């Protein structure tokens, strides 16, 4: 029970962090069809910006300024980069962001150095909020939960209640419709891309000190975000939300269950010994592959249901 409750909380926090990153990508991917490889790079930029800003004016202004900066960068990428290559198709767009990811990583290394930077949790939030069965739950994690919940609410309302939101929503499910409705599609694309990258930046601000702010953080975070977006399905924020939480929980709980395929076979009376074919594979325990489960799930879902969990159209 103890492990269960604590794992649930941890899974939720991690899932929400994933959601913050993935929601921006879902918006971009669903509407523009661009699989943005630079998304995690912007996440990293968000963390670094927040670190630098917080050195001068503190964490709280950084919480606002860093995502704004990231959003501006996103707008620039869209206007001067993506729009240019749009006519060459989605592969070209994807490759552009891929190149950007390489450049951003190098630029970060050149600007902030190769080592982690001491980006710390603000003192105001640096205390244990409560204890569950003797394990502290840091206030900062609660703060992360709060921010991501607020963000989810804001996106939800923004899409439901504003005019632009309604257009975006229409364009999410039927990208070709938006222009038919006579809207300024390039402007909306820029807006969505900027908003998406700003969300990634925000995730960076609050994820950078929760994890470690270093030049490799984009590289490690990138693939998993794709997994969440694809698993959740195109055009569905709800799907993205569920997928994020699901991925957060599955990785958390995989750690807890110490079972392997061999154990499963033992249930059926088949004993796995060293001489059994593939004994090495059968003896792998769940915690060892917990972090790989998302990839396995993504491959499976794409093979059998290419639109993802709640997608409105095929990937």
């Amino acid at each position: 029970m103890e492990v269960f409750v604590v794992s649930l909380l941890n899974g939720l926090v991690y899932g929400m962090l994933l959601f913050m990153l993935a929601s921006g990508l879902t918006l971009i991917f669903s509407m523009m069809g661009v699989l943005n490889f630079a998304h995690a790079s912007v996440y990293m930029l968000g963390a670094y910006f927040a670190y630098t800003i917080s050195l001068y004016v503190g964490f709280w202004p950084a919480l606002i300024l860093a995502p704004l900066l990231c959003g501006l960068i996103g707008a620039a990428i869209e206007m001067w980069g993506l729009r240019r290559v749009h006519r060459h198709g989605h592969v070209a767009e994807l490759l552009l962001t891929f190149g950007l990811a390489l450049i951003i990583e190098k630029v970060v290394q050149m600007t902030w150095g190769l080592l982690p930077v001491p980006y710390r949790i603000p003192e105001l939030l640096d205390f244990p909020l409560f204890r569950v069965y003797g394990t502290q739950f840091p206030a900062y994690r609660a703060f992360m939960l709060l921010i991501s919940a607020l963000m989810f609410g804001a996106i939800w309302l923004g899409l439901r209640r504003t005019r632009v939101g309604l257009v975006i929503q229409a364009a999410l499910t039927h990208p070709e419709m938006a222009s038919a409705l006579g809207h300024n599609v390039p402007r909306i694309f820029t807006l969505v891309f900027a908003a998406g990258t700003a969300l990634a930046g925000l995730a960076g601000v609050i994820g950078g000190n929760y994890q470690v702010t270093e030049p490799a953080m984009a590289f490690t975070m990138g693939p998993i975000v794709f997994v969440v977006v694809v698993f959740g399905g195109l055009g569905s924020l709800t799907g993205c939300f569920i997928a994020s939480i699901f991925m957060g929980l599955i990785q958390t709980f995989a750690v807890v269950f110490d079972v392997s395929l061999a154990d499963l076979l033992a249930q059926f009376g088949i004993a796995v010994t060293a001489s059994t074919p593939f004994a090495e594979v059968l003896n792998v325990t769940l915690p060892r592959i917990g972090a790989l489960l998302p990839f396995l799930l993504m491959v499976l879902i794409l093979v059998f249901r290419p639109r993802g969990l709640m997608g409105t159209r095929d990937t």
Partner: protein
Amino acid sequence: MTLLRRNWPWLVALAVLLAFPFLFYDWTRGRHSGFALTLMSEIGVMAIFALSYNMLLGQAGLLSFGHAVLFGLGAYCAAHTVNLVKAGTIWLPTELVPLAGGLGGLFFGFVLGWLVTKQRATAFAMITLGLGELVSAAALMFMGFFGGEGGITIDRVMDTSLLGVRYTSPWQVYCLVLGWAFVAAVLMRLQMQTPLGRMANATRDNFERAQFVGYDPRRVRWMQFTLAGFFAGVGGGLYVMIYEIVTFDTVSAVKSANALLAVYIGGAGAFFGPVLGTIVVVLLQSGVSLLSNAWLLYVGVLFIVMVMYAPVGLAGLIGMHAPLWRTGRLRELLLPYLRALPPALMLFLGFVLLVELTSFTTIGAAQGKRFAIGGQTIDTTSPLPWAIAVAALGVGAFWLRREAHAFRLRWDALMEDAKRQAGAP
């Protein structure tokens, strides 16, 4: 005889590539440059790999993020085969080791292809991404087949050579690589002209139409994937022969990304594009990385410039000159090119200077390196070099814009003429 007349460039290329390492020959010590030979062998291997990648991207329109899986698994198969031969379990001529890699690639291409080719477009790309992650993680976990972190080592000196060569020197290995690269390139070129190759193009262009002329697009994808696996595996087999070791890095995403970079920079549309791209990428990685800390940045910028301004790749750019070449008016472009050269050079040098200055103030200086051009040490803290860099960058960019405009006008006029000339008879 006509075969020879039509295909002489291939043979000339082969001869030149054979003679090429002698440019690096160390006459005083009487030996080949191992570095140059290994680098050229690497280019050969990566060229096969990139060509096989282009069987998917260029020919079938399939964007894969996990092609290295086939390359690496082929390499592991070849390595295990060599060790079995060494142990006397089986007999195989040394020269056919890459074939063992190819068959391994073929097998895994077939098995994994069954899974990944169920989808196309983005879903295909994401499945290959996931699969790549899974296989590279598995390569570290399972010692039996992958040998863990240390990988599988072999000794390529096997005494089973058909030609009586022992492959102790890099030169002999280079010849083997060259031979196989040549054969593989010819086969891949020919494959393009087979029904499967053409239908791969057709499914790339319009998979639905392909269905309504009787083909199952999935089957076409699957078979194309399997064949690409074969050639990637041949590349893997040669990799083993060069380095005599295969580790988990061969299946990694980095390797896959390299193929993508090479194909796109070189041009997916032309057969030789990927080879061109491979040369550029390998030289950037192995050559420029010796000179500059920021080589990764240059790769990224080159890549982006290509994507934005020349999505047809280097080979495509060259191919665009073909009509002028045919009409014999290519030299009329000489002057416009010459005029565009100084601003382009200026832009380029300004950019490089700026990057290097930054890199040296942040990373290089700490390494205790000095920034020197032609023996002259440059003080990265004084404003002068920075001002020069920025000025060169700005002026170069402005000037190039103007020249580019003039160039464009001249180009369009020439192309118009060429088109009319071609249409006349």
